[in-house]
């Protein structure tokens, strides 16, 4: 399947999910368990995406300049840097480490 198809699937799913909140009877989603799953899903997916983008290269685990980007971003976040600054710090760390010869 081509990428456009899956982009449109993702967009439709996202909109219908948002709309669902406005259309279904309240009690369906006020269930504490549903709210908790929505919360843990968000945390779990973001944690997974962070790790996968740091160490996975295809099906292999590779430690390279991306690990430096992770550490640098964590330090920036620790000092309450705004999101865009964190992203730039991550890019600079990876680019800098590559200049120094890291993979």
């Amino acid at each position, binding site marked *: *399947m*081509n*990428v456009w*198809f899956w*982009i449109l699937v*993702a*967009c439709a*799913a*996202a*909109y219908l*999910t*948002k*709309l*669902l*909140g*406005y259309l279904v009877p*309240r009690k369906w*989603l006020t269930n504490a*368990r549903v*709210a*908790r*799953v929505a*919360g*843990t*899903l*968000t*945390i*779990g997916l*973001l*944690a*997974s*995406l*962070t790790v*996968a*983008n*740091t*160490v*996975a290269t*295809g*099906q292999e*685990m590779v430690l390279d*300049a*991306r690990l*430096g*980007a*992770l550490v*640098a*971003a*964590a330090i920036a*976040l620790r000092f309450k840097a*705004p*999101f*865009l600054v964190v*992203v730039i*710090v*991550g*890019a600079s*760390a*990876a680019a800098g480490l*590559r200049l120094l010869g890291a993979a």
Partner: protein
Amino acid sequence: MPTDLRHSPGARVGLSIAVATGLYGISFGALSVSSGLDVWQTSALSLLLFSGGSQFAFIGVIAGGGSGAAAAGAAALLGIRNAVYGMQLNALLHPHGWRRFAAAQVTIDESLATSTGQTDPVEQKRGFWVAGLGIFVLWNVFTLVGALAGDALGDPKQWGLDGAAVAAFLGLLWPRLRSREAGATAAVCALATVLAVPFVPPGVPILVAAVVAAAIGWFGFRHGPEGEGLEPDVDPYPGPQGRPGPTNAPATR
């Protein structure tokens, strides 16, 4: 009597959060083209999907060599929290007719947080619409700027854009790690990802982690703080003491 729009606290907060959030559309645009999507596909995600976390998830899976199906799956699962936000906003703002369909599209972390941070119903409405529509416009403009810039950059690795993606995901995760339960959930899901990487195709480890996360939410941590994981990426009301999560705000009125 409501204050006029120029002095409205809801509109003012909405506008400042729109600028802060809209700007980081640049990073999405640049990372999206470096993941292999073209400028049109990148803009389509910002226009139609319009949910930062889900958009980053989609391109994060594609960048790692994952299939379109895995990317769409990760994006859809990360968007589930928006249904909970929609329910809260419906109870808070009662949009009618076509407004309900427009409100749904701009239902995101920041518009919810801006709205629930106000106490006056008029301000809640203004906060929601100014933040939601403001972010929509700026996010799309800056996505395009980032995409065109990213296209001109050449080799994304030389510029450390893979490191930027890592930083972006950590930046989205960070504000959500306010409790021990949230930290434990993140750690378990990170571990599940690492264990799954060698055994399944790229992108699928993220879906494995989603299953683990859902199981933790469904079966575990009965007594964790309400609404954890549902914090906005950018806090509209930053203060020295922080702020309770948006779902702790009174949504039932």
